[in-house]
């Protein structure tokens, strides 16, 4: 097991190295840089002033030198300085991470809490009215982008109640209930979409398993329907569901851009887009690396979870 984890982490490191080259290269390929944006706020461009700023920010050095410098900084735990804010990148990134992690985890809880039971019900009641209704419910969730749903929630609340969740971040220590309200609505908006996917996977996977011989045997032995479904069928159908949950979590970390924007939550995804627009390379590069690390770790976690859920899957042998 230890060898397996070590191997996976080694592959993860190589993936990160590859990612760093891709991120770095793509950012430099995008037209314009921070200096162009700075001049945009002034409405003009002056070549000599431009050269001075490029020198100040180190953008006048060869691209490979900039890359090596960035990797050196990462290895030494120094993420560099934000071009836009002239502050250490870590100082800017640090407060964003808990917001996004919290929203992603809450959204995932909503997704699993809705998706798995509804998927089971839909499979068990296959081709009944309830099944059709739940399938429409899930199709609607997949069809509605979460940002659209978020905006509809905001506009409905303001139109009917004259109230919306706080537009400035409220920490749980400051006011727990307000914090909970602030995160619940976006978590519902995002979680609903994810739940639709989980529900569909749960349903199809469970239907497949329920046609297996051992399920028929269990039923023939007189076991109750509940035991057959939850203990025999679901346990064997859960692997694809866990895979989807893992992928969804990784997707949520980087994919909350619009939801964070609509609900005005100061998270990683919203800030990342802003940093891309500003060509704030140190912030973009480090945030994307953070997302890549989360994706690698969540995949590793899911793979390890297989071993616990299915005794047939064992690593390191």
């Amino acid at each position, binding site marked *: 097991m230890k060898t397996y984890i070590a191997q996976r982490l080694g592959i993860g490191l190589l993936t990160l190295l590859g990612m760093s080259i891709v991120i770095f290269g793509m950012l430099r390929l995008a*037209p*314009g*840089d921070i200096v*162009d*944006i*700075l*001049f*945009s*706020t*002034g*409405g*003009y*461009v*002056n070549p000599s*002033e431009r050269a*001075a*700023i490029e020198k*100040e920010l180190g953008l006048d050095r060869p691209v490979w030198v900039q890359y090596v410098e960035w990797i050196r900084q990462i290895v030494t735990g120094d993420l560099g300085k934000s071009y836009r*804010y*002239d*502050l250490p990148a870590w100082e*800017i990134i640090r407060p964003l991470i808990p917001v996004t992690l919290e929203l992603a985890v809450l959204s995932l809880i909503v997704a699993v809490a809705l998706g798995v039971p509804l998927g089971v019900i839909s499979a068990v009641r296959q081709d009944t009215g309830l099944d059709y209704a739940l399938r429409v419910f899930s199709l609607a969730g997949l069809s509605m982008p979460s940002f659209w749903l978020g*905006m509809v929630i*905001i*506009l409905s*609340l*303001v*139109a009917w109640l*004259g*109230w*919306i969740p*706080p*537009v*400035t*971040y409220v920490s749980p220590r400051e006011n727990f209930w307000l914090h909970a309200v602030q995160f619940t609505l976006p978590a519902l908006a995002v979680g609903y979409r994810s739940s639709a996917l989980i529900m569909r996977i749960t349903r199809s996977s469970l239907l497949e398993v329920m046609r297996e011989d051992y399920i028929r045997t269990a039923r023939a032995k007189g076991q109750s329907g509940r035991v057959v479904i939850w203990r025999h069928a679901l346990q064997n159908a859960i692997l694809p569901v866990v895979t989807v949950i893992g992928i969804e979590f990784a997707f949520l970390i980087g994919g909350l851009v619009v939801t964070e*924007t*609509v*609900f*005005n939550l*100061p998270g990683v995804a*919203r*800030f990342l887009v*802003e940093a891309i*627009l500003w*060509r704030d390379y140190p912030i973009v590069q480090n945030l994307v690396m953070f997302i890549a690390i989360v994706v690698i770790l969540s995949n590793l976690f899911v793979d390890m979870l297989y071993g616990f859920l299915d005794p047939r899957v064992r690593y390191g042998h």
Partner: protein
Amino acid sequence: MTRSTRIVALAMSLGLAAAFAGAAPASAQAPKYGGHLNLMQREDLSQGFAVHETSTIATSFPSMPCFNNLVVFDQSKRAETVDNLVGELAEKWSWQDNYRNLVFFLRKDVKWHDGQPFTSKDVKFTFDMVREAPEAAAKLRINPRKDWYTNVEKIEAPDPYTVVFHLKRPQPGLLVMLASGYSPVYAAHVNPASYRTGCIGTGPFKLKEWRKGEFVDYVKNTDYFMKGRPYLDTLRYVVIKERGTRTAALQAGQLDVSFPGETTKTAAEQLKKAVPGLVITPVAQAVSDNIILNTKKPPFDNPKVRLAVSYAIDRRALISAVHQGGAVPGASQQPKPYGVWGLLEKDLLALPGYGKPADMKAHAKKLLAEAGITPQNPLRVEMSTRAIAMYVDLASFVINELKQVGIEATLKQVETAQWHPMATRGEYQIGANLTGLGVDEPDANYYENYACGSPRNYSQYCSEEVMKMIEQQSQELNPQKRLALVSALQKKVEADAARPLLDWRLDYFTVWPHVKGLVPHDNIYNFGRMADVWRDKQ
């Protein structure tokens, strides 16, 4: 504009204001102390509080409470005229030597937010830096308003409380430019680069915290030199990137004040319907829609083709279709009653594109035919614009208008990072553009946007005759004569289709009724000091 049409325009403007303001009573109550206000902020501060290094309202508006100017437009009056100038850091001022020297006598009771005394050294430091004087103690990283001060020969600080601006020639407009929200005084003992991350000012509020991408918090400056001010204890500028969320937050009462230039006529009508108590004041933004034409490259190096473009665009239809009536026609200076220098309506009607649409389009076709452009030999151009909705809407309308006279334009959306470099380098044919004027002063406008060699003269239009006219109006001391010169200048640049003006945008500035003393100006860049603002509900 005749006397009768002026009266009608004024009455309409007042009527509109009254309709939006509803039953809001005139603020005759005694101001109350204390309380907090949340103000809308459309985007994060682009360069922190470094106002001299930027030209965006996203920096200037939330920086206003931190700073002071030598002089400022009276914050309690909407109109920005010379008569409405009041002293801030300058107690009084005097033009001397036939407008060759401008002398400021400074207040002696002013302290910077870090406790250091304010003196004439700070004024000299700031404006030597902005005009890039050889003796300047510091240099700005980006200096968009250097052109405002090219006529300043020397700045002297003979004693700690007197400053003299020596001019190369008379320039009455300099005083007005010093009143802009873009002309605050920096502290000489502070590195100007530090304003990108913090703010040491003399203003009514001290910066408490700028949480990047989230908010800017201010607390009352208890040492403020105006005794009894400010009234409010705290301010928060809340950054909300999504327009729908911003509007919802204002409607829900989480924000007390809208962002200048943010509220369109349609949005204002919806807000008023949802919350009838909101106080909405229609004002001018000092932001124009205009067309930039690359005068250095074919086909727009041909004045006839440029003029045909100007004739082809129906200004009134644009105002109706794109702004739903929330803009007014005008030439290169903001029109009356919003601005001081705008052309009269009768003069506007004589300009390209302001007459009867059918006649204008026929004339455009004739000009194009004279330039060899016919239905058999149509002109195909690329219309560039910023990839932002308000720019794209404008460009789309213009493309449709051009099509009607035989110019086939395709839309090219340019990302913000590329827009100004592209425009400055002249790497475009024709573009749909927005221009904000930091102050309603012809010198600020013409030296920035029409002077030969100015980096913001995106059309790269250069006319010796126009340069002479700019210089002439700049040093004219008689206000009536200067007005006539500026009128002639406006007609000339429109007749040359240097940068055809399409309209001037209006803002429907919105506050909750408990916000008192916040008077929006007819220029979004010059109000918001917040010293006289108070809250009528704790």
